[in-house]
């Protein structure tokens, strides 16, 4: 097993992963309410639809709070690491230095501002124009992640990587980020409404999965470093774990779509809805693990670098 030399430690990678996951959750929740939910809620009793909206809002505010705390925590930890600070006071003192003198600091501050503007954009109304503005703010906050990664720093000749990474992040947000609101919705939705919501989510989800596959292929193999990097580095092993998780996610999505969804229209609809609800929860947890794995990947030397010292005949 290759050594897992995670830069900053596992806790640091966890904070970064949670920060990104919460950011994607904000966008996913908004897309769900803006695109998937409207016709479903329109077909429900007003009181039931209002209750669904209350739950959805709690999820959204929770996600916004987690994203703000996560981004703030990440900024503090990263500032200390960049400035070589050790104590809490030194780390705090490093924050303005990093904000004013680095791309990372500037992007994190912009992200914090965008996330803070989401509640202001929504206000007390869930009207589509306000939701659309909030979704645009959340999309910009999520897309800013592309400015912090390898794609943005590698430069010459690899500018296309930044676009690919942006699309990858947005697709992940729209697919995985919609799982929590879908789970909350399914928990108490009539079977017919649950079926309609899942159909609408699946169409959007499939588009996102195709986009994820295309952008992942564009970025992937070279950064992993070929077969040597894949099997001989911590980066490759983590990528393998991510691949495995993604495969399980696809399998669960297929079960939801081809097994549980048809049953929602049959005589065992209530049982199918409960099973579907559990399945979506598992899918959401696995989605979080995929994002955390991505957070670990960012803290490891990429396979293409680490594999250079390996003796492997298939480089």
């Amino acid at each position, binding site marked *: 097993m290759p050594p897992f030399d995670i830069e900053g430690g596992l806790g640091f990678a966890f904070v970064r992963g949670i920060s990104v996951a919460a950011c994607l959750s904000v966008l996913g929740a908004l897309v769900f309410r803006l695109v998937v939910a409207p016709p479903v809620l329109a077909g429900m009793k007003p009181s039931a639809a209002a209750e669904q909206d209350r739950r959805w809002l709690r999820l959204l505010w929770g996600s916004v709070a987690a994203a703000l705390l996560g981004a703030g925590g990440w900024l503090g930890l990263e500032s200390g690491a960049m400035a070589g600070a050790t104590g809490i006071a030194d780390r705090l003192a490093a924050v303005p230095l990093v904000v004013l003198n*680095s791309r990372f600091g500037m992007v994190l501050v912009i992200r914090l501002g965008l996330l803070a503007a989401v509640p202001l954009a929504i206000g007390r109304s869930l009207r589509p124009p306000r939701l659309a503005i909030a979704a645009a703010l959340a999309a910009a906050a999520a897309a800013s992640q592309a400015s*912090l990664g*390898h794609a943005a*720093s590698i430069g010459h000749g690899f500018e296309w990587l930044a676009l690919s990474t942006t699309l990858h992040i947005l697709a992940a947000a729209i697919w995985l980020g919609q799982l929590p609101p879908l789970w909350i919705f399914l928990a108490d939705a009539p079977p017919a409404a649950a079926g309609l919501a899942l159909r609408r989510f699946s169409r959007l989800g499939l588009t996102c999965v195709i986009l994820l596959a295309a952008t992942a292929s564009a970025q992937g193999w070279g950064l992993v470093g070929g077969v040597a990097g894949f099997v001989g580095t911590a980066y490759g092993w983590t990528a393998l774990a*991510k691949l495995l998780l993604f495969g399980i996610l696809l399998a669960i999505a297929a079960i939801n779509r081809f097994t549980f969804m048809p049953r929602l229209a049959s005589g065992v609809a209530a049982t199918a809805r409960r099973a579907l609800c559990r399945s979506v929860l598992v899918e959401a947890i696995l989605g979080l693990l995929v994002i955390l794995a991505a957070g670990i990947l960012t803290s490891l030397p990429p396979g293409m670098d680490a594999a250079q010292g390996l003796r492997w005949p298939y480089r």
Partner: protein
Amino acid sequence: MRKTLMILFCMVGFAGQAIAHARLESAVPPVGATVSTPPKQIAITFSESVEPAFSSIEVTDAAGNRDDTGKPQVAADDRQVLIVALQPLGPGAYKVVWHAVSVDTHKTQGSYSFTVAP
């Protein structure tokens, strides 16, 4: 549909916010070189863009005296090139120790030597 899912499974999995680290690609004066004219600056080209405020290039002579003038800067047209000005150098061997923080916040470091011919 099942075939599509299988293809997607095979395609995805390597992506993510892959982060490389800033590696030295070239330097002026070159790594290990002997130059006849004393250089006025050290310019290191990295594999990634770097943050000058958190990066450094230190140049010392054989006696361990510092010969750089302080904080480095990136080239005006290329953030992958880190430059530090030098004090007037005499003949002898010099050691260059660099620390780089790439714009994706990862730290790397290294060192090399060059010689100014008598």
